[in-house]
């Protein structure tokens, strides 16, 4: 069974020195505006914790996110854009709320959809300042502090954009914000 003193796989050294190819990587990843990811999500708040499967489709500013429990039930559907999102829990139970605060208001989850859509691609949210950023030996963003969140980005894998240029995207994102945690482990990315 797992040894108790194992370290998470990304505790290798990182540097705050911006790598040469970072601007180019940032530009390429920012141009990817139509994508879907699927994997598993974990949410911890001071008084609850959930895990489940997630499918997230992003088309420019519009997104649809489905989260369901590991046995398939106990899920929710979210459809919206950066301003408003509609949350469906079952056929006749839906709410429309500002995207910025929707999941905080509805489920007491800190789940910043507008920022996460950048963080999951391994880049900062361009709409707010970066407090600090660290890069792994391959020049990818390993750690980011933004909007009070501390984000670890791990397990980068190569993918091809629509124009066939290779880009590296993270397959594990762990984000913390005073007593809250959102973790995403991704089985696959599709770039359209």
């Amino acid at each position, binding site marked *: *069974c*797992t*040894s*108790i*003193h*194992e*370290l*998470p796989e990304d505790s290798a050294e990182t540097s705050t020195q911006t790598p040469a190819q970072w601007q180019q990587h940032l530009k390429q990843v920012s141009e990817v505006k139509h994508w879907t990811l699927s*994997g*598993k*999500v*974990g949410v*911890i708040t001071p*008084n*609850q*914790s959930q*895990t489940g*499967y997630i*499918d997230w489709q992003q088309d420019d500013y519009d997104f649809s996110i*489905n989260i*369901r*429990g*590991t*046995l*398939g*039930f*106990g*899920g*929710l*559907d979210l459809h919206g854009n950066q301003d408003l999102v509609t949350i*469906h*829990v*079952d*056929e006749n*139970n839906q709410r429309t709320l500002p995207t910025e605060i929707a999941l905080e208001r509805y489920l007491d989850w800190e789940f910043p959809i507008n920022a996460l859509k950048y963080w999951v691609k391994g880049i900062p949210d361009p709409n707010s300042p970066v407090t600090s950023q660290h890069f792994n030996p391959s020049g990818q963003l390993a750690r980011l502090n933004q909007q009070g969140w501390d984000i670890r980005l791990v397990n980068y894998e190569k993918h091809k954009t629509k124009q066939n240029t290779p880009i590296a995207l993270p397959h*594990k994102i*762990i984000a913390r914000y005073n007593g809250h*945690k959102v*973790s995403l*482990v991704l*089985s696959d990315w599709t770039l359209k």
Partner: protein
Amino acid sequence: ADSGDRLSALLEGMNAYSANFEQTTHDAQGTVKQRGKGQFILEQPGRFRWVVKEPFPQTIVSDGESVWVYDPDLEQVSIDYLDERAAKTPAVLLSGSSEEIRKHYRISDSRDTLKEMFILNPKDEGSLFTMLVLNFVDDQLVEMQIEDSLGQFTKIVFTGVSLNPSLAKDTFSVSFPDYVDVLDNRKAVGQ
């Protein structure tokens, strides 16, 4: 005997049970959303180990009093009292007493030449699933079906069933690295 008694007799017959399972989840339109595989070990009363191997490992273990849900990739463990989880995890139901089941579910059954089917509809509002179906063949659980309020439908097929398996000592416990976040909800209940 009413369906409740018959189901209880079958579950009691499962006092020690182990099987592999394959899970498929469809959305309301019937498209496959999720496939998974794993292993399930049950020892009455209340002890079980539900291990998902694919697509992402997850271990759910109950020692009869508390339930641990460990997701290694998400670096996260949550601990609840067993009866708190009743509405959330069907596996808890399989290890529960028949009064527990009758308290939480309306039970009906139907039978054909091949199998006995039990349909459970939760009585309590807060339940996350709207219907649970348990299929038995030759008195052995072979399939579980779960439907939720979004119309998502999950089917779990059990194979390689063995009754009274020999169990390792640590079957109903789980260990994890110390960097994992542990959320012990039992404290919230005010021990």
